[in-house]
């Protein structure tokens, strides 16, 4: 039984300004002070900020960054703030009291992805020094940590907005990158994180691409090719035929079954899906591909040996990494598998790396390398992967919507080329046959026609970072220029991007240019639904003098989202220059 230090509670209560329940929570602890692990999965993880559980959320945040690990997810109620004695006491004395600090502390965490098997839970240390008790508790928790391996090996196609939701409370970089992800990739397919996910994802993608190709001859040819590679596994890889045939057989059998069903796309996909969720078949296929990769490495030592840093050389690397079940694919393995499996059949692998590198969208790389500088239309079918540190999932690009213009496909594909120039974006737009200039001249015309909008968004090259104002068509760039924000209540129908994050879809109305060019600002409030809901300040059509001089105007210093307006000479004709921080004399 642990009695919370009354002083600590007092300080917590007073300085934080949160109202804690009248009855202080009773802490009961077993030998292990942290009882958080058994609560994982419930509650909002890092959530609950600003809601009824604000006190508890702040307390947990204060309890230090050691709680950021997924295993420490706690429920959002203050009464359940099961924080260990050491960490809670330390936390209460160490944290600042504004919710801004809390929010920033929270945003530096990654969301609770529980996909990773190979990585033990790691603890971000740095905001405060953990006490020895914390370390003991952490170690105990780490020992007991079981990666969440529920669900199928290969999941169903899921709208990729789920990824954005997963990261909604994470680091701004993640928020930004995942927020735009659904525009490029409408769906993803979760792969179980059992250490095989990279192999599994590529193998599944290989079969799926074959099914999508719908070409029986191609599948039969692939079967022959893979069977022919057996001798390669034997001579180069040095594996006895009786060892590999069991694995190879499953691959060939599945190819046979798919070839037989090729007329019926749905059935063929169902066959691939169920086979990949059968551990015996899936393990065998993945291991077949592992053997192919390792044999390919052994057979091409001249090209790859220099990249193998394993102390055991190529052989050591093969036996310790490539040929071991549950050992994740690495960059060399990826290259090898692409070269031995995908490249000969003309498939291209594109990996989107979701990490904390600077930028507004995920970095993507294509394999094989030759494909990087080529136009996507000249490339074969693509398999898209989403890489998050230590984990791969499959991605599916957004289909170009109603208008089957080849141009839209190009725009979308090129979107990941680093050298892509966004200024050329308007060009394909003209191919819709709409006079953009004329539309832009319509007063109050804020959004493209509803049918057109999703297409534009889906093919949006670089919605956040690469905005360059287009003099002729302000309406068109506006969905890209501004981050998804509050939908305007009086506007034409908002752009229907399926995004349920607190930050909303693009503002559709933009008669007043100044607001459009505001950079994305992730204030702590933008994650709080109730703030966002009341958030009418962005609506520029309220620009009456009464409104402007009220605290509902964001330029008013009493506005909680106070944001000084920038002086813009071009808007002077209807907007008087401002004096001071948003405190303006009426100009109308």
């Amino acid at each position, binding site marked *: 039984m642990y009695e919370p230090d009354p002083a600590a509670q007092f300080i917590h209560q007073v300085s934080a300004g949160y109202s804690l329940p009248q009855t202080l929570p009773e802490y009961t602890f077993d030998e292990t002070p942290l009882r958080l692990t058994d609560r994982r999965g419930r509650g909002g993880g890092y959530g609950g900020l600003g809601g009824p559980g604000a006190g508890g959320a702040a307390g947990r945040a204060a309890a230090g960054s050691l709680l950021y690990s997924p295993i420490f997810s706690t429920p959002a109620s203050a009464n359940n703030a099961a924080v260990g004695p050491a960490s809670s006491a330390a936390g209460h004395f160490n944290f600042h009291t504004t919710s801004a600090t809390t929010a920033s502390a929270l945003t530096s965490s990654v969301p609770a992805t529980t996909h990773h098997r190979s990585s033990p839970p790691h603890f971000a240390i740095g905001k405060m020094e953990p006490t020895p008790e914390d370390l003991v508790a952490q170690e105990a928790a780490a020992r007991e940590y079981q990666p969440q391996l529920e669900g199928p090996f290969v999941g169903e196609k899921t709208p990729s907005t789920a990824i954005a939701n997963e990261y909604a409370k994470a680091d701004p970089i993640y928020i930004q990158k995942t927020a735009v992800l659904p525009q490029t990739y409408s769906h993803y397919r979760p792969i179980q994180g059992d250490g095989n996910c990279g192999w599994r994802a590529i193998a599944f993608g290989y079969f799926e691409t074959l099914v999508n190709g719908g070409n029986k001859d191609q599948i039969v040819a692939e079967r022959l090719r893979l069977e022919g590679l057996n001798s390669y596994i034997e001579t180069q890889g040095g594996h006895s035929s009786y*060892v590999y045939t069991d694995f190879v057989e499953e691959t060939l059998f599945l190819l046979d079954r798919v070839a037989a069903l090729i007329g019926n796309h749905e059935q063929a996909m169902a066959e691939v899906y169920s086979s990949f969720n059968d551990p015996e078949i899936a393990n065998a296929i993945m291991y077949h591909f592992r053997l192919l990769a390792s044999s390919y490495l052994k057979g091409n030592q001249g090209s790859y040996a220099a990249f193998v840093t394993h102390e055991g050389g190529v052989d050591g690397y093969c036996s310790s990494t490539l040929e*071991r079940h549950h050992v994740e694919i690495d960059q060399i393995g990826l290259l090898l598998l692409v070269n031995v499996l995908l490249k000969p059949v003309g498939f291209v692998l594109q990996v989107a790396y979701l990490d904390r590198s600077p930028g507004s969208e995920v970095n993507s790389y294509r394999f094989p390398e030759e494909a990087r500088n080529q136009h996507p239309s000249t490339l074969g079918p693509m398999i898209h992967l989403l890489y998050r540190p230590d984990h791969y999932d499959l991605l599916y690009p957004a289909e170009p919507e109603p208008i089957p213009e080849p141009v839209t496909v190009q725009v979308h594909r090129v979107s990941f080329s680093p050298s892509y120039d966004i200024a050329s974006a308007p060009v394909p737009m003209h191919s819709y046959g709409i006079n953009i200039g004329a539309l832009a001249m319509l007063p109050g015309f804020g959004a493209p026609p509803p049918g057109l909008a999703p297409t534009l968004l889906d093919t949006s090259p670089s919605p956040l970072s690469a905005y360059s104002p287009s003099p002729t068509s302000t309406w068109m760039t506006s969905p890209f220029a501004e981050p998804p924000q509050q939908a305007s209540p009086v506007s034409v129908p908002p752009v229907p991007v399926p995004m349920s994050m607190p930050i909303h879809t693009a503002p559709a109305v933009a008669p007043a240019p100044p607001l459009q060019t505001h950079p994305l600002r992730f204030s702590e409030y933008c994650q709080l639904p109730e703030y966002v809901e009341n958030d009418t300040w962005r609506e520029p059509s309220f620009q009456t003098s009464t409104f402007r001089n009220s605290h509902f105007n964001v330029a008013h210093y009493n506005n909680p989202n106070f944001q000084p307006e920038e002086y813009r000479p071009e808007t002077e004709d209807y907007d008087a220059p401002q004096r001071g921080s948003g405190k303006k004399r009426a100009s109308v």
Partner: protein
Amino acid sequence: MSSSKRITKELTDCTTTPPPNISITLPSDSNISLWHITLSAPAESVYYPGKFGIIVQFPLEYPFKPPQITFATRIYHPNITNETNGSICLSLLKTDNWKPSTKIVTVLEAIRQLLVEPQPDDPLETRIAEQYKNERKEFEKEARAYVSKYAKGQVKFNVVDGAGAAGEGQQAGRAS
């Protein structure tokens, strides 16, 4: 079931070209995933001329999980626990190191080699490992004593399906 397919092939491989000093029997015709192996200690090892019973149990997930291999005959060895069901410390067999492509012949040869060359730096029995390193004569004497006590004559396997339960039973019987 794919694991039995593979086991059958491994068995064929082991019986067509039997590794030296090793013979394999199946205690039950209906259960191919339990092997009894008789290992005659190589002449160059201190355990010569002992004969050791080794039980190989293949898990359902084989070959994606390693087989469980235990010594049914007691042996005085740094890398094998000093009990009736001696676990073997062989990096090849650890779950973290196991490769589905590893052949059983390779494993058996590694075990035989372990008798010739114990690896005292990676011990299961630290006391024996220390003795092996520092008092080799004492070690050899003790090892030979174990051979004459346990590893002479007909090799006995615990004829119960579960290897672990059988081992405990026999140990309890010995103690009484």
